[in-house]
Each structure stands twice: as C-alpha cells, then as structure tokens.
C-alpha cells in the first residue's frame, strides 16, 4: 500500500509504446518513458506537444491507440490509489457552489468508494491537507472567492488527501503568485524526499534546473528524458521547440562564468 513497500528498483511510472490520436491527428507518438521512484520530473515541450495528453493518457482519461502504462510494476488500472492527479486549474468552474474544505474532501472519495459519504475522518484529513498548503483559514470559504494561487493550493491539498505515491500535476504553476509557487515547490520537494514521485507539466524553462532533478522533453514524440544536468541542453530544446525558443542553459552558465 504505502510507498515504503514499493521496490525502488522498479520505476514508479513506466510508459511503453504510448501512442494517442484525436481523430486523424497524432498527439503522442510511441512514447517510452521511465520515471524512477522518488524523483521529481518536469515535462516540458512547446504548445501542442502533448504534455497534458501524456498526463491524461497515463491515467486512461484519453483512450490510447497503443501502449502500456504501469505504476510500480503493475497496470495503472490496478494502481489507481497510488496515483493522485492535480488537473489544470482552469479545467473546472470555480463558481461551483461548494466550500474549500468540501472540495479538498473530494480527494477521499476514491478510498470511500461508491455511495459511502465522507465523515469525520475525511474531514480531519482535509483540514490537515489544507494546513500543509497554508490554507486552513480558508476551509469554510466559497471556492469562488479564491485567487488563482489559492485555487491551485486547494487542488494540491485535494491530491494530498489521496495519500498516493505518484503525483501527476498539470501546470501547477500556471498563473499563480510567487508565494504560492514557492509553497508548492516546497511541498513537492517534501513529497519526493519522502520517497513519493512527482511528474509535473512545466512551462517556465528558467526554473527547471532549480525545481527538478529529471526532465522529459516532449514534442509529440519523446525528444529526450533523463537527469536535468544531462539532457536539458540547447540541442534537445532545439529539437523540441525548433527555432522558437531563445532559452539555452549554456548562455546562462556562460554569463555566470563572466
């Protein structure tokens, strides 16, 4: 059950031959990816590279044309409880009539199963997750009153309630304030330090080296994946982004050398 029992030699996430298409458009092509247990991984790539689709197809939210996904060595379908999902903040309607604590409680629905309602235990869990993201004071607030950063923290708290061992996050830093970004990074680093695995779609190439130890560079196909210091270079970024990126880590380090 808990991540402590996972064999660290077996990758937390293994994607084999994954191909996804919408209609006649190929969105992901033959992806092979291994995410070691306890690592923090950025998924980067240009718009339309299939980053969100990768996160979704790992969880079976979009149909795969081909490919297998395993979590800690077993098929995803059998390991749902090991995976927790933080969707893009903009994917839901924040005008929905519900409170912050009730939204966070949704993370416990999977453990409860069909029909059973959350009780006191789930409430406590939700509150302690809110405390972790510094949002305890907002527990009874309407979600419509939250700022972008607060919305993102609520989503993260909801994922924390799931007590999974693999966290899949879709653009967790999209449109959030600097304080929230720091808070989220701190929590994610705590998670990986505790043996959990984090896979996050990331946009800001400037912070990749600071936040992540591993990276997967994507553009329909997988351009490169591995340790940030080994594969996060201009050559791979050129392959993924074409001439559209002006960001090269070399330039940054060159400056530092001067």
């Amino acid at each position, binding site marked *: 059950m808990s991540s402590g029992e996972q064999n660290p030699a077996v990758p937390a996430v293994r994607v084999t031959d994954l191909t996804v298409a919408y209609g006649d458009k190929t969105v992901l092509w033959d992806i092979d990816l291994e995410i070691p247990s306890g690592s923090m991984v950025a998924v980067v790539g240009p718009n339309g590279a299939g980053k969100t689709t990768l996160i979704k197809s790992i969880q079976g939210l979009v149909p795969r044309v081909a490919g297998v996904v395993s979590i800690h060595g077993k098929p995803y379908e059998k390991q749902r409880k090991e995976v927790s*999902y933080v969707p893009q903040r903009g994917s839901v309607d924040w005008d929905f009539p519900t409170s912050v604590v009730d939204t966070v409680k949704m993370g416990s*629905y999977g453990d409860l199963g069909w029909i059973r309602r959350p009780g006191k235990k789930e409430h406590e869990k939700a509150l302690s997750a809110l405390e972790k993201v510094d949002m305890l004071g907002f527990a009874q607030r309407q979600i419509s009153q939250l700022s972008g950063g607060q919305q993102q923290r609520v989503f993260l708290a909801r994922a924390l309630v799931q007590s999974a061992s693999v966290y899949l996050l879709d653009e967790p830093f999209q449109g959030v304030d600097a304080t929230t970004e720091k808070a989220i990074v701190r929590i994610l680093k705590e998670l990986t330090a505790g043996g959990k695995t984090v896979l996050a779609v990331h946009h800001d190439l400037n912070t990749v080296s600071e936040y992540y130890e591993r990276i997967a560079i994507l553009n329909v196909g997988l351009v490169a994946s591995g340790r940030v210091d080994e594969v996060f270079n201009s050559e791979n970024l050129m392959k993924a982004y074409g001439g559209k990126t002006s960001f090269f880590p070399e330039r940054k380090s060159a400056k530092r050398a001067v």
Partner: protein
Amino acid sequence: MLEFAVELFSDYTARTILLGAASLGIVSGVVGSYAVLRKQSLVGDVMSHAALPGIVLAFLIMGVKEQLPIFIGAALSAVLAVFLINLITSNSRVKTDSAMGMALSVFFGLGLVLLTYAQKMPDANQAGLDKFLFGQAEALVGKDVLVIGVTGLFALLVVGLFWKEFKLLCFDPDFGGTMGFSMKSLDLLVTAVIVSAIVIGLQTVGVVLMSSMLIAPAVAARQWTGGMGSMVILAALIAAVSGVTGVALSAGLENVPTGPAVIVCVSVIAFFSVLFSPNGFFTLRFKDARSRREIKKDYVLKALHDLALEHDDPGYAHSEKLLALGSEKGFNVRKSLLQLQEAGHVERAGEENWRLTPSGIREIRKLSPVGSNG
C-alpha cells in the same frame, strides 16, 4: 381570497392536484439543479420538447390515452434526441448548440405533425392530447399523483445515494474518473433522472414549459446560496411553491393552462433572485455606488487636510473651488462636502469655505495611519 384557498384545500380533487404539483416541484427543483450545475440547461429544454412525438406515437400505437405507455413513449423519444445530439457532435463538425437546436426543432415539429394527425382521427379518445403542450393540472387524478410520487421518489433516491459521485461529475469529471468512478455511467444516471422528472411534468406543466420548471428554480436558488446541498433544497422549495401557486392560479382563473401559470410564478422568483439576491444585479450596483461615494468622501477629506497642512493648521479653511480644481470633471465636490458635514467631519467657514473638524482630523488619521503624508 382566503375563502378560495380554504375551498381549494378542503376539496379532495383540488388537494390531489396540489399534492401532484408540489411533488413535481420538489423533483424538478432537485433534478434541475444538476442540469444547471452541469451547464446542460438546454439539454433539459431539448428533452422536454422532444418528448412530444413519443407521447403522440404511444397514443397512436395503443389507441388509448393510457398513462404508462405515454410516459414510456415520452422518455424514449427524449432519450433518442440526446443520443442523436451526441452522435452528431462526435461524428461531424456540427457544434453542440447547433445539434441541440436541430434536435429540438425536428422532434418538436414531428410531434406537432403527429398531434395534428391524431386530432383529425374520428375517435373521440384523442381529446385532450393537446393538453400535453401546455399542461392541464386539473386533469390529474389520484393515480397520476401516485405515479408522480413514485417516479419522483426514485429520482430523489438516486440523487441521495449518489450525492458525492454526482458532485464529482458536475465539478471535476476527469478527477472523478481517475479515482475509478465511471463517469459515463453517472452521466447516464443523471440523464435518466432528468428524463424521469420531465416525464412526470408532462401532464401538469406540458412539454413546452417543462424545461423552465427544471432550470428556473435552480437558477433562482443559486443566487441565494453558496452550497450545493442548500442550493438543491432551496430549488426544490421554490419549485414546489411555484407549482402549488401556479395550479391554484390556473384553477381560479378561467382558461389559463397550468403550465404557463406555474412558469410565471417560478420566473417571478427567478427574476427577483437575479436582481435582488446578495450577489444580484441591484445589490451589486448599490454596493458599487456606496463604495464610490466613500472613496470620493475620503478623497475630499484628504485634499482638505493636505491643503490645510500647507498652513501648518489642520483646521485651516479652504474654498470649495480650490478643492474642485484638483479633481476630475463631473466630480461633485459640494455633494461629498455636504455628506462629510452630515457626518460631522467638516464645517462651513463662510459662504464657500470649508474646514476640517476635530472629528474630521481623527478620521483622516484613520485613513492614513502613518500620520502626515510628508
């Protein structure tokens, strides 16, 4: 009026009808909340209109105006319309709104054609089939109310059992899917519940206006509350009250079909809620105007203070014209000054001159806790 009410409630037939209207209201309020929260209000509209051909076909096939076959016919054709919408949108480039518009007009048009045909038949049995258009609550008998009650209870039971799953479906279906809940089944279940609410509303409210019975109470309730549970309960209450009032109106006035009477009631409540609820149109306007007034007053107070400080005397009087100089065109300085005078923060010093009172000076300290703005 009171006499009329007493008469209405003491009469068995009237009680039956009112009970039917109230139960229908409760069910459509609850179920309609889901249509609104899923942003599928229009689907309810399509489904209720699309029930018409099913109603007439059921009659044509059975040859009698029997309730159960008519319900089944109505439900089948409503579901068929939704199925066709999904088929069209997923297999062509036609967008959902166009597909819904098409389905609504095609099904309703077909229903009207069939209805005209059925009414031309010599059989007197078809009489009253057109009542399904706008509803006729007076025709409700004990058996009808029983069917409404049982169907309604089924719908409420489903909503009660799958409360948390439906919440996931409405708020974040993708997230629900990753936890192993089948969103497809839940979607079907919600559709089934909506269809059953529509079917039991056919006799009372009619196919044309049934969708308002689903949508308006939920919209009205949403204006007053921020919780899903309270919204659903309030919507049920609003719809039940409207149902009962509408039926009473239609019974009291000659030749007013029940559907329109009920819908007028529910629309009045919905409009009132949208305009006057704590987040309503007028309430927000009022709050806006108030805060604008406060800002202007603070501005004038501060300007008076700044000018006075140049004379090292916070109580130094200045001309109104001088205050108006530094402000925008159309800004009525006099009005703000009079408001401040009423609050005791400023006082007149001659015809056009004003000065801060000690209370005004205290007020300005509150505004800028740093003290002077030097």
